[in-house]
């Protein structure tokens, strides 16, 4: 089976993300990047599916040239090839413009199943996968914590408020994986070496048939008006434990009349 994973490469978790006041976007330039752990889980899930059912996994991603490191990581994990949407014009895309670009790139691939993360670990909108599914005209399955493919059907355990739901659809379909669905593998040396020879196809928005006014800031329906820091809570008291830390918390609870 052919699996396409739409995943994001984001500023590394060690980086404190800042917003640029001039263009109201996240500062992504010049900071170390990594494959989003949530995307790594979707890649891992794709690899497990093809290990069972045969086929290959293709990664589709979007971003400036900083993201190559994350693409290489996915290739080293075992992804066959990657598609990189690289175009200055796509900077500032909102969720829907992003989904249009990704969906157009997915359409150029053969796929039985499209896997995404439920949300990225840097902006968490959580709606891009559902937009992609609708743009591709395939059923959207979301919040999957377990995926089983059997013949032409996919069944997932979908997280719910009270437990989980068993949800089924015919393929092709899009499944968004929830965080913690699996523990992504670490690339091995062999994979890292092999990754260097794997193909990364680069597309511009025009290559994907999208006009300049459909993507990037021009195509964005959502416009950020202001950014700022909310009034900070007055940070309270902090003490260093010198053997009485637990008792001091109990004292604080007594002070606010909880005990």
């Amino acid at each position, binding site marked *: 089976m052919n699996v396409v994973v739409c995943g994001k490469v984001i500023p590394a978790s060690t980086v404190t*993300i800042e*917003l640029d006041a001039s263009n109201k976007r*996240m500062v992504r330039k010049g900071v170390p990047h990594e494959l989003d752990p949530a995307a790594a889980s979707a890649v891992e899930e794709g690899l497990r599916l093809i290990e069972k059912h045969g086929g290959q996994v293709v990664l589709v991603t979007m971003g400036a040239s900083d993201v190559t490191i994350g693409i290489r990581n996915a290739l080293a994990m075992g992804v066959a090839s990657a598609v990189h949407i690289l175009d200055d014009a796509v900077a500032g895309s*909102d*969720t*829907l413009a992003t*989904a249009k670009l990704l969906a157009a790139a997915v359409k150029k691939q053969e796929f039985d199943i499209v896997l995404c993360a439920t949300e990225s670990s*840097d902006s*968490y*909108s*959580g*709606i*891009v*996968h*559902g*937009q992609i*599914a*609708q743009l591709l005209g395939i*059923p*959207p*399955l*979301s*919040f999957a914590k377990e995926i089983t493919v059997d013949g032409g059907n996919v*069944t997932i355990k979908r997280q*719910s*408020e009270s*437990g*989980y*739901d*068993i*949800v*089924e*659809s*015919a393929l092709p379909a899009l499944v968004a994986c929830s*965080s913690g669905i699996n523990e992504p593998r670490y690339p091995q040396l062999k994979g890292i070496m092999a990754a260097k020879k794997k193909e990364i196809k680069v597309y511009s928005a025009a290559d994907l048939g999208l006009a300049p006014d459909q993507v990037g800031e021009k195509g*964005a*329906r*959502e*416009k*950020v*008006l*202001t*950014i*700022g*820091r*909310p009034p900070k*809570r007055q940070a*309270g008291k*902090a*003490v*260093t*434990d010198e053997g009485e*830390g*637990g*008792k*001091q*918390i*109990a004292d604080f609870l007594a002070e606010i009349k*909880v*005990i």
Partner: protein
Amino acid sequence: MAETIWVYAEIGDGKITTTSLEMLAKASEAGKAEVVLLGPGPDDAVQTLANHGASRIYHCADAVYQDYLTLPAAETVAGLIEKHNPAVMLFASSYAGRDLVANLSARLDCGAITDVGDFELKDGSVVATIPALGASYENTSTLLNQGTKLLIVRPKSFEPKENPQALAVEEVPAAADDSLRKVHMKERVVVKREGPSLEGAKIVVSGGRGLKGEEQFSLLKDLADVLGAAVGASRAAVDAGWVPYAMQIGQTGKTVKPDIYFAVGISGAVQHLSGMKTSKYIITINKDPDAPIFQYSDFGVVGDLFKIVPQLIEELKKRKGA
């Protein structure tokens, strides 16, 4: 004339969800509130909505909305939006709400704002306040599309309010097309949870990466038991597989607003802060004095949680006994 604001109401545990009523309170304050309610629900569902400010309820109790996810509801809501063109439509930041908005925005080519904490209508447009990147920043955003603006509202942003309206229900036909019956809900499995639920708990004890493993969460359970608290977790702990997702607090988990929130071994990633920062008192235990969580805490102890928590439990038991 006041603008019309729609609320997509959801049913959970056999009743209209609290978040639906919260959104309804805001909608009736900001404009003329109307509700879309799809799928089977309790008999008093429409009355509950009218009592909380709904001046009109578009309703269809067909089981298709319960048995098939997203597509039938999106079809019906899209049809209603095109017909009535409300200024704004509010959805809860829930599983169903997010999926529905994703589908609708692509279908109607209209974009959407997620994680909205508040909004106002201004010159025919909407200005939404979004605590961005968790809690590091607060942004305002607007939508430039013509027609209805879709907003995903985070729970506990508003207080539900009684605001009785005359009951006006408009029954709408069920989405009948077979092509919408694609994502089949075969079975709902309820996983029993112990102790008080996170949503309603007065005290929440949460653990993060600092707990170092699954077994150590029993330590928090012991603390929670003494306090009558619910146990939560950060995404790091959930991702590590130590505790189930149902315990996750944060932007992509649950939003809680207890009187007292214990952040134990939680650094305070923005993702986590957004789910708990409105707690009345935040008590922090962390070995790293520079952890961002200390910025938000009312009382913090820098040190080894494996020493501090047992001492706290013992102390609480002692004082309770006294």
